[in-house]
């Protein structure tokens, strides 16, 4: 039996007080725990959480650097950047998507067929992400949209920078082109450095000087909210945002003389062929043309599959850089090199004449090697053999030298190896060098004396590119100096406009060849253009300055070696290639040129006139007199360089101002005029 309990107020009050004090203690301890936690978060780890908070709200947006210009030696800008305008749509801000798009169709800014796929694209994106709905508007389209801009909430013109080749296909095989960055490009670039960059150099100078042209992209930090939507809140939140301005790429200055380049391309028009002209004293390439050419602007903004297939399937191979990559038999143009080798090695006495009939009989066999067209040379010495391009003489000479000597001499003139030109893609041609022989004909097995014989007229195991031929002509012109051919002579800092000139690279000097030998061979090459029996006599007749040249007619069929060649009866693709090499003036050469016209027959008829016109254009003034030689180095800054067009087009000017702006900024007159399809 428990006793009846009575309420004891005093005791209960004390019980409550004890409990209250206990609760108070627990509360103080709990509060201390909270305070400790706050101290940990806000003092101990403040830096860490600040960083996290910063990273939360800040996104980094790249600002692409303006790509450097490519400028010809006279200051004309051959590759520039142009502002283009894309139509961008922000789904969030467009109240009536369908009617807006239909309205754009009515303005002929969109095609009706594109609407369904556009809507699909728009719907698949975040509603606040800008979607490009039309790229590269023409000037007129920009104006048409700009005046009605108020009718299109959420649709804006977005200024971009695109590569622009104002002269289209001019010098495309030297300058190259840019294209969208491909998966294989990604492998050898620093991807972080290319964030924000749309294109990359694919060929030519654009590829070789990609690093210098590209510049350094900048970035801009933008404030975004938790959904990733950019917010523009001035003041406190934005104060730490950083903008790193891009460093524009360097301008590249080319050795190309656009006057010569234009002429070369004009003269090649309608032919498959190539022209390379250079300054023999430094390797500066004055013209580098390959025909047919193509418009690099197609690639700069993304070529359509259809356009690309058309280029690839063209039987004349416009994308094929013949100047650097066409490896062809050179025909008789190789004879001066063989003559110099034979003279130096003492194989031939320049004074001694031999009788050359229409064919030569290889000792120890019954095989006959014919002169072209069964011509009879008669009594000829080395000089006359070069002047009239006597094949029989050179069959015999080659035979006497043997393949070992030929294989040792040809590389001295730049054959069988790359010239080292400063753009990628050149082929090294073919020469029967000892290494090549050892690889393909070990112990001379399978190599017949006849194979050596035809080397004497630039046939057989001997192939060269037009670039190699021009390089070789330069070595002849300088009496033995081999300069690496080059397109880029200097780099210009886009800010200071200071030009860093590159030094020419001398990579060989044929000192073993005696002045007397040079005199004989160059005299003979002069005779080619001045002696009435010279193969280029008629092509070069009455030249106001002395020219040293050599024709070449490279045979592509077997019948030719037998002298049974009938040009008209041979399919075009198997007809002779026409070569001509020349330098002028003979005693103080300022230009060396190599011309190839494929399937055009005699070197004298197709290639030589082209070479003559190019030399005339370079050497003669408007009055037909020889121009005074310009001092070689250093060149002064191109005088009429136009002001630089900077990329990252300032977003402050309004679209209307843009639309009202005069014609494009770069050298081209029709920068924005082409109506896009």
């Amino acid at each position, binding site marked *: 039996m428990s006793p009846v*309990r*009575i*309420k*004891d*107020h005093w*005791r*209960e*009050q004390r*019980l*409550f*007080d004890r*409990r*209250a004090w206990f*609760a*108070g203690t627990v*509360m103080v301890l*709990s*509060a201390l*725990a*909270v*305070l400790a*936690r*706050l*101290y940990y*978060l*806000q*003092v101990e*780890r*403040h830096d*860490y*959480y*600040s960083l*996290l*908070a*910063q990273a*939360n*709200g800040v996104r980094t947006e790249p600002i692409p650097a303006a790509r450097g210009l490519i400028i010809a030696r006279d200051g004309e800008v051959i590759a520039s950047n142009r502002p283009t305008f894309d139509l961008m749509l922000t789904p969030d801000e467009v109240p009536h998507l369908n009617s807006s798009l239909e309205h754009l169709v009515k303005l002929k800014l969109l095609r009706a067929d594109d609407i369904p796929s556009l809507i699909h694209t728009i719907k698949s994106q975040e509603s606040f992400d800008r979607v490009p709905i039309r790229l590269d508007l023409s000037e007129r389209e920009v104006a048409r949209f700009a005046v009605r801009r108020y009718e299109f909430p959420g649709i804006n013109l977005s200024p971009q920078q695109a590569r622009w080749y104002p002269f289209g296909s001019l010098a495309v095989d030297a300058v190259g082109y840019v294209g969208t960055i491909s998966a294989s490009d990604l492998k050898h670039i620093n991807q972080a450095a290319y964030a924000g960059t749309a294109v990359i150099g694919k060929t030519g100078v654009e590829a070789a000087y990609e690093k210098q042209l590209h510049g350094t992209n900048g970035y801009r930090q933008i*404030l*975004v*909210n*938790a*959904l990733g939507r950019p*917010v523009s*809140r001035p003041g*406190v*939140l934005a104060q730490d945002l950083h903008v790193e301005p891009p460093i524009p790429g360097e301008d590249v200055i080319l050795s190309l003389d656009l006057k010569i380049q234009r002429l070369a391309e004009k003269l090649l028009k309608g032919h498959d062929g190539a022209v390379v002209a250079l300054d023999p004293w430094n390797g500066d390439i004055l013209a580098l043309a390959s025909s047919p050419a193509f418009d690099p602007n197609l690639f700069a903004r993304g070529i359509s599959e259809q356009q690309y297939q058309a280029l690839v399937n063209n039987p004349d191979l416009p994308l094929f850089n013949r100047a650097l990559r066409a490896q062809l038999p050179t025909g008789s143009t190789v004879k001066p090199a063989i003559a110099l080798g034979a003279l130096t090695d003492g194989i031939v006495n320049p004074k001694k004449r031999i009788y050359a009939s229409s064919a030569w009989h290889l000792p120890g066999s019954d095989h006959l090697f014919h002169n072209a067209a069964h011509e009879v040379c008669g009594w000829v010495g080395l000089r006359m053999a070069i002047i009239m391009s006597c094949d029989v003489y050179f069959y015999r000479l080659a035979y006497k030298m043997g393949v070992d000597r030929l294989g040792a001499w040809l590389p001295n003139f730049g054959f069988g190896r790359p010239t080292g030109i400063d753009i990628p893609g050149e082929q090294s041609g073919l020469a029967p060098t000892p290494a090549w022989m050892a690889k393909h004909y070990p112990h001379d097995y399978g190599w017949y004396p006849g194979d050596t014989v035809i080397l004497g007229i630039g046939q057989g195991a001997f192939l060269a590119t037009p670039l190699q031929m021009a390089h070789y002509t330069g070595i002849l012109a300088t009496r033995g100096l081999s300069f690496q051919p080059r397109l880029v002579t200097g780099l210009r800092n886009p800010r200071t406009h200071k030009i860093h000139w590159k030094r020419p690279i001398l990579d060989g000097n044929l000192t073993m060849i005696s002045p007397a030998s040079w005199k004989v061979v160059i005299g003979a090459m002069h005779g080619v253009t001045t002696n009435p029996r010279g193969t280029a006599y008629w092509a070069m007749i009455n030249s106001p300055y002395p020219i040293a040249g050599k024709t070449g007619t490279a045979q592509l069929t077997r019948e030719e070696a037998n002298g049974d060649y009938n040009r008209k009866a041979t399919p075009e693709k198997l007809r002779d290639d026409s070569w001509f090499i020349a330098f002028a003036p003979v005693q103080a050469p300022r230009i060396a040129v190599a011309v190839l016209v494929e399937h055009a027959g005699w070197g004298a008829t197709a290639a030589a006139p082209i070479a003559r016109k190019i030399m005339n254009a370079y050497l003669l003034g408007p009055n037909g007199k020889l121009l005074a030689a310009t001092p070689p180095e250093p060149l002064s800054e191109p005088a009429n360089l136009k002001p630089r067009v900077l990329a990252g087009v300032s977003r402050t000017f309004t679209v209307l101002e843009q639309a009202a702006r005069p014609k494009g900024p770069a050298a081209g007159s029709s920068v924005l005029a082409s109506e896009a399809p």
Partner: protein
Amino acid sequence: MSTESRARRTLGGAARVLLALKVDGPLLTGLGLIAAYGLVVLYSASAENLPMLLRTVLRLALGAVIMLALARVTPNVLRRASPWLYAIGILLLLAVAAVGHVYLGAKRWLDLGPIQFQPSELMKLAVPMMCAWYLHERPLPPRWSDLAVLGAIILVPVALVAKEPDLGTAMLIGTGGFIVVFLAGLRKRVIAALLLLAVGGMLFGMRFMHGYQRERLVSYLNPEAHPLGAGYHIIQSQIAIGSGGVFGKGWMAGSQALLDFLPERTTDFIFAVIGEEFGLLGVLGLLLLYAFVIGRSLYLSMQGPDTFSRLLGGSVALTFFIYVFINAGMTTGLVPVVGVPLPLVSYGGSSVVTVLSGFGILMSLYSHRKLMG
């Protein structure tokens, strides 16, 4: 001399008014300062949402009116009303279960025409009142049979609210009742046993929890496990507080809050906005205000003349503390995220009125003490 006496006269006059209103001046001041602080923070946290601010002011005004009214009601009336209030609360909870308004997957609201009302809020007051009423006539500490009755009084509404489901409120209701029992002198051994039971029950209960409840618990234990899921709240809240540092980023300059990284920043996570914008100093200031209000409340309840007053008053004070502690704890990552608002600061419906009503009752118990004892 004359200015001083005028000032003293003004103060004296104010004190007389407060006395006549049965209002405790220091407590009223503390609550007013907290509410004012809350409005300043809410202005920033809501991104200058004036209608939201206006609604909060109106709720504070409504709560203040109810508080002043309750302060004038005598404790005897309150005590006698307790079982009725409790019964009404239970009925309303059943009504919610039957015809309640579903919002965000939970049935918590009762739609009374223009007013939407959470009966669970009423139970936050009704349960401690009922417990205090039950213990008032009985000798303390409570006997086993009393504990059984009290257990039923507490657990029935807790179960109904937990089923809504509103685990946070259910827990707070249970805590309010338990505090009364604790203050009444519940034996320490029983307290220890109950704590063990609670932990065991929580582990067991996890099997019956709704997905989001379990996730909240798991994410509390390891927030980085779901950085974009349930752990997101905790992580972003800690980033906000931590990045505030000692002095804060300044009013209306909290990037976490303004850029929407901090979820529920006007309601349950408003404490993180304070930490971000006003820093450790701003948080300390607020916590000092809370400490003052809680200390004053505890002091007032210790002055209570009878068991009912003391138990109910103590419960109001301690429950208020638990709100603050849990909210500060969950935003700083000390305790799991349970939907407990920061009293008088968080934007939100009934809780302002409930809290202020509690303090009204406390004031009544204290200011009428001479009429009883």
